[in-house]
C-alpha cells in the first residue's frame, strides 16, 4: 500500500496491509510532529504524482534489496498538529533483521528523495518558517 493523503493514518490498517502467513516479523515506523517551542502544527506540501511514483519505486527497491515479503508507505500531508502522525512505514519479512534494516532505510530514502516539504505553523500568527 502506497499513499499520500490528507486523512489521519490508520496504523492498524498499515500493519494489516503487509501481513502474510509466511512473514514472521513486521516493523512499523511512525513519524510524528514533535512539539517545539512556538510551533503548533506543520503544514506538509506535496508534489503528488511524483511522490506516488517515487514511493512506488522505493517500495520495489526495498523489497529487492532486503527480500521483504511486503512494504507499505503512507505519508500524510496538509496541516498536522503536534502529536499527529506524518508518516507510517511497515516492512514485513520472514526474519526480523531484514524488516528492521529495511524500515530504517526506507525512512532515510523518504527524507532524501520524496517531494514533500514542511512549513512550521506558529502558535502566534505572525511567525511562520520553513523547516527541513
Amino acid at each position, binding site marked *: 500500500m502506497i499513499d499520500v493523503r490528507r486523512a489521519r493514518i490508520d496504523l492498524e490498517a498499515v500493519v494489516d496491509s503487509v501481513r502474510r502467513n509466511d512473514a514472521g516479523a513486521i516493523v512499523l515506523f511512525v513519524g510524528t510532529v*514533535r512539539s517545539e517551542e512556538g510551533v503548533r502544527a506543520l503544514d506538509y506540501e506535496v508534489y503528488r504524482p511524483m511522490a506516488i511514483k517515487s514511493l512506488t519505486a522505493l517500495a520495489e527497491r526495498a523489497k529487492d534489496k532486503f527480500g521483504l515479503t511486503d512494504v507499505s508507505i503512507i505519508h500524510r500531508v496538509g496541516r498536522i498538529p503536534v502529536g499527529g502522525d506524518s508518516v507510517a512505514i511497515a516492512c514485513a519479512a520472514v526474519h526480523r533483521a531484514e524488516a528492521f534494516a529495511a524500515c530504517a532505510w526506507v525512512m532515510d530514502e523518504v527524507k532524501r528523495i520524496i*517531494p*514533500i516539504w514542511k512549513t512550521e505553523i506558529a502558535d502566534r500568527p505572525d511567525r511562520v518558517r520553513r523547516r527541513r
Partner: protein
Amino acid sequence: MRIQVRLFATYREIVGSRGLTWSARDGLTLQELVDGVVAKYPRLAGHRDTMLLAVNHDFAPSDRILQEGDEVALLPPVSGGAP
C-alpha cells in the same frame, strides 16, 4: 513549444504561483529553461545550488532535452517524514 513548469514551497512563494507555462524553441535543455526562469525571477538565484529538477515526475539531469508537453518541476530540498 510549451513546457509546464511546477513550483513548490519556497519557490512557489518567490514566484507567487504554483506553475508557469513556458514558451521555448525546440531543443531547449532543462538547464536553459531553469536559466530562463531564474532570469525572470532573480530571487530564485540564491537557491540554484540546492535546486532539484524533475521532468514528468522523475528526477532529470540538467542536459535533458525538453519535449512539447513536458512537465518540469523545480524542487527545493525535500523534507518529508518526521522531524
